[in-house]
């Protein structure tokens, strides 16, 4: 019972945050509402007992991605202008695409059988993740570091052109 209540609360936090993202008049406030939505999703992860994922959600999405979005808003010309409009003539097209995506997702979720495994949950997820970085996923692990390097160097080249 308590779990259901917690689920409803976190879902409401995520949904209200997402709703505010698309309805607030200022892009900056949208970015802040996105943080609220991320926190709600982190709560849902905890309810699913995916604690590492929840910690990453807070650390990376709330900590880094939200900061990136907020900084992107404050360094963009005219976006911080109080007179700037957050909506334009294209809003109904975007709504159409979003509604279509929603229908596809609902259809897919209804169609997939979602098999339930009887096997016990792995006891130490973080440990098995860490050992797979040395074994199975050694090359992807190193490629991630290359990807991060490319992101950093590319951003510096774009942001510092004079």
């Amino acid at each position: 019972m308590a779990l259901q209540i917690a689920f409803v609360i976190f879902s409401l936090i995520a949904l209200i945050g997402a709703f505010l993202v698309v309805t607030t008049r200022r892009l900056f406030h949208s970015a802040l509402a996105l943080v609220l939505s991320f926190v709600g999703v982190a709560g849902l992860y905890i309810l699913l007992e995916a604690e590492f994922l929840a910690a990453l959600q807070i650390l990376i999405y709330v900590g880094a991605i939200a900061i990136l979005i907020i900084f992107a808003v404050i360094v963009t010309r005219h976006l911080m202008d109080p007179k700037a409009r957050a909506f334009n003539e294209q809003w109904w097209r975007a709504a159409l695409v979003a509604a279509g995506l929603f229908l596809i997702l609902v259809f897919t979720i209804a169609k997939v059988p979602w098999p339930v495994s009887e096997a016990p949950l792995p006891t130490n997820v973080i440990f098995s993740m860490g050992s797979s970085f040395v074994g199975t996923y050694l090359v992807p692990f190193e490629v991630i570091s290359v990807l991060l390097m490319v992101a950093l160097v590319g951003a510096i080249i774009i942001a510092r052109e004079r």
Partner: protein
Amino acid sequence: MLNQYLFIGILALASFAVPVIGIGFAWLISPKRANPLKRSIYECGLETIGETWVQFRVQYYIYALVFAVFDVEIAFLLPWAVAYNRLGLVALVDVVIFLGILATALAYAWRKGALRWS
């Protein structure tokens, strides 16, 4: 296991309640006759000079991006650190390469002066 999160939930509620009660109670009992002096932001910062909603310098974005890159790196280093005791030398070499590539990126940012405030 989820019961442990009950404490976090209670703390979250308390930390939400304290400012709400404080501000709400002050709003409830305070007299509402304002004058310009009373509305000044006494000991709460300075009046902004010019517009508040201005465009900031793009250099802030590089700092945010460097932070994001190393934040993601932490996410990969934590499982490695948990498993390190039982993995041996391969794990060490693995992460030295991982960090080496990222250190190259940081060295590049440093060399290009992206971290200097000009």
